[in-house]
């Protein structure tokens, strides 16, 4: 029998993907555990662009088996390549014991053990784990409220309506069928009478009567109305809600001299996180960067994070600018999120109060959610106090403070943690 050659190279890939999914399930808690480290170690930045996926080190998913303790017992082994040994020669065991020192891993051995490996998961998979316990602020609200736009959609026909919605074709069809239906009725009658008139035995009186009747029906047949009220059909429209799938995220940061590199770095990571989070929820996201010292300015990302300014701090202009941008560009159809990072410095207490007021009276009504983070400050600032008062009544304003990279994830989680359903 000849050999059967099977070329499998073009078979679909991913034969082991169900096993991979099972592995992911198995190690999901380990992946989640690794997330704070990933946030801390600057990888979030890569995440926003990386197409390759995320590498996650996994430890301790071993498969225990009964085995021997290598140090115990009296054993004999055979090795190849004897050069100098004679029977009776002795070789001192290496201090740590074990299998002749080779093949055995010392504590400093850089080689990775079998039970410690790296799994690469796609960006989408990662985000699922990343935000597993989190949800968008007020998911319910989002479902109801983010459906802010309506579209008129054709929904059949109706008998009533305004003349501009008259459906001519449909109405004309109705009219034709009505005319035909009534016409047939009269035709039948006329035919009947004509049949009767053919009968020669009729008296002249009867003939007169029938002829009159015939005339009547002939007149009626001609006078069938072209259009009747019942023929008219109007296009019907209904309002359909459409979910808004685009979002805009405002990043507002204080770049006055008091914000150092470290503080900016923390803010940047936080913005990244928020951005990642939103990418999971919305198809399209725009980011608006506003930085401010004494004046506010809309900038691009690079400038936002990298250029230095000096001088004092006035916060209000940035919020005013945001208000203006919303009005100009994002007044409808947009889910609006805002994140403000600051060290809490304000020009004076009035500035803080002004900010609080513009939020309360204007901005918070338009936007889905606003986050204020205060970085690297032990003492509560005026801005913090002022915002605190506002957030008591407005659940879509959240404030948090971060002093160190390691706290970013916790604070973020706290903002978005799943609420227990009421």
């Amino acid at each position, binding site marked *: 029998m000849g050999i059967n050659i099977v070329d499998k190279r073009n078979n679909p890939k991913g034969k*082991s993907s169900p096993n991979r999914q099972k592995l992911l399930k198995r190690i999901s808690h380990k992946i989640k555990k690794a997330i704070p480290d990933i946030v801390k170690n600057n990888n979030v930045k890569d995440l926003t662009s990386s197409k390759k996926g995320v590498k996650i080190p996994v430890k301790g998913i071993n498969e225990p088996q009964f085995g021997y303790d*290598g140090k115990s017992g009296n054993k004999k082994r055979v090795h190849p390549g004897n050069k100098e040994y004679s029977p009776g020669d002795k070789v001192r065991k290496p201090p740590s014991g074990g299998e002749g020192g080779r093949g055995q891993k010392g504590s400093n051995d850089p080689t990775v053990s079998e039970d410690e490996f790296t799994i690469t998961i796609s960006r989408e998979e990662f985000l699922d784990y990343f935000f597993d316990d989190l949800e968008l602020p007020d998911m319910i609200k989002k479902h109801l409220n983010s459906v802010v736009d309506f579209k008129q959609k054709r929904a059949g026909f109706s008998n009533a309506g305004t003349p501009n919605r008259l459906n001519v074709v449909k109405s004309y069809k109705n009219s034709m069928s009505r005319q035909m239906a009534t016409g047939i009725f009269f035709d039948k009658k006329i035919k009947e009478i004509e049949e009767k008139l053919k009968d020669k035995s009729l008296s002249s009186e009867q003939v007169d009567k029938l002829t009159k009747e015939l005339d009547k029906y002939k007149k009626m047949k001609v006078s069938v109305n072209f259009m009747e009220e019942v023929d008219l059909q109007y296009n019907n429209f209904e309002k359909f809600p459409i979910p808004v799938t685009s979002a805009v995220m405002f990043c507002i940061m204080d770049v006055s001299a008091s914000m150092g590199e470290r503080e900016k770095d923390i803010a940047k990571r936080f913005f990244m996180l928020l951005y990642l989070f939103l990418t999971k929820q919305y198809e399209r996201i725009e980011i608006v960067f506003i930085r401010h010292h004494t004046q506010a300015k809309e900038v691009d990302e690079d400038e936002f994070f990298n250029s230095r300014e000096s001088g004092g701090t006035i916060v209000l202009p940035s919020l005013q600018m945001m208000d203006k941008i919303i009005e100009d560009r994002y007044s409808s159809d947009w889910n609006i999120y805002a994140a403000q990072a600051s060290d809490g410095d304000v020009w004076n207490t009035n500035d803080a109060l002004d900010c609080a007021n513009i939020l309360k009276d204007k901005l918070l009504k338009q936007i889905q959610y606003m986050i204020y983070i205060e970085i690297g400050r032990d003492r509560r600032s005026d801005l913090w106090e002022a915002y605190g008062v506002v957030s008591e009544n407005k659940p879509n304003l959240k404030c948090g403070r971060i002093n160190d990279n390691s706290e970013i994830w916790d604070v973020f989680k706290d903002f978005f943690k799943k609420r227990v359903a009421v």
Partner: protein
Amino acid sequence: MTKDKLKEMFSNSDWNSDTILEADKIISRIAKEHLGLDTYPNQFEIVTSEQMLDAYSLIGLPISYNHWKFGKDFVINKSKYKKGRMGLAYELVINSDPCISYNMEDNTTCLMLLVLAHAAYGHNHFFKNNYLFKQWTHADAIVDYMLFARDYVSKCEERYGYEAVEEVLDACHMIMNYGVDKYTKPQKISPKKERDRLKKRIEDERILVDDIWRTIPKGDKDSKDRVERFPKQPEENILYFIEKNSPNLKGWQRELIRIVRKTAQYFYPQGQTKVINEGCATFSHYEIINKMSDEGYLDEGFMMEFLHNHSNVIFQPGHDSQFYSGLNPYTLGFNIFNDLKRMSLNPTDEDKEWFPDIAGNKDWAGTFRYIVENFKDETFVLQYLSPKVIRDMRLFEITDNEDSRYYEITSIHNKNGYKQVRKSLSDTYNRSTYYPDIQVYDVDFDGDRTLTLNYTPINNKQIDSGNIDIIISNISRLWGFPVTLIESENAEDILSTTKGIF
């Protein structure tokens, strides 16, 4: 096709399916005429590296049920491969009928011919003829069985949830090595036979009754020993015992245990025949390709490449080399078979003394086939490792006693050492050298149904205590009641127990 055309075809390092078909015609003829190989039909699959990694993670099963451990192996192998820390084999062959072999797409023509001779004829012959494979595996049914297993597992997942299925499978995998039969189980005797046996026993006792026995005083021990254990004889197949005797398991859980057990049984011969199986395949490819060359199908360039690859396959670093990781089974197996051929054709006095049946018998191919059919690693080495091979490989034996601070070199390649080296090496292929001997010892059916496992130490070796509690508690999950592991049938010497958990 003419010989010259074929020669030209094989000297081109790019191949196509015609190359393989033509080569197979020649190789199958040589395999039959020259070596007398008897093989299953071949299914020769060309695969990519990704597909080869898939095959790796299933450790030699054509298909398998889904489980995370296969995913883990895949991930580990893939990352090793990508980093260049691991090369992929040129081929991977499966014990099935037809015999499936996976062959890497980037093999050169020379490598394709080598793996064709090696796997599709060498291993294939071994699978079909070795006694262990004949006894324990069903090459024609494995694909169907694993298909059934995969469907069954996924149906169970749908019905009972994947967690419940995974729990059973995880526990089974931990003691998979204790899910194999090493000997055929005796048939259950029929009730009638049992009654007859009992009758005969009573009759015998009546005939043999002797008053003098009553005068012998009874010891205390007697009363204790009279309580019969269950099972009467220790059971080495722990998974089998649990499947058949666990009080609480549901039908589907028993079936899952059975699936793991069957899989383990399928692999049982492979673990016992690494040296002899690779030796058989390596010797086969060496003979076949050389014969092809003798017949004039191959040019010099091809043979240079072949010899280069062949010597890579049987490369054996010395014990002091940084590349040393134990004896290379390809090398050892090939050397033994090759030396047997030598002594069959050109025996020395030493050969005549050590192997009187083989030395000078001229039927080296028949000898080769006889050994392939009837031996496993342990017996193969014990029987056929010749002094010349011990000398050539400069094998030596070290003794490692736990309470000594030294390794002692106890035997080397000299007249006094040959037998000891051979015996010692053979012992290292004994299954109990790597799997501790643990068997089902007793079940307390009158009490809390504790399952007692017994560990019998060999050479004073202790079980690694690191994982022991996890494994015992997983066995206990399968069993449904407490499990205790004791040592040397000593109920006081408890290595691990789940008592108290329940």
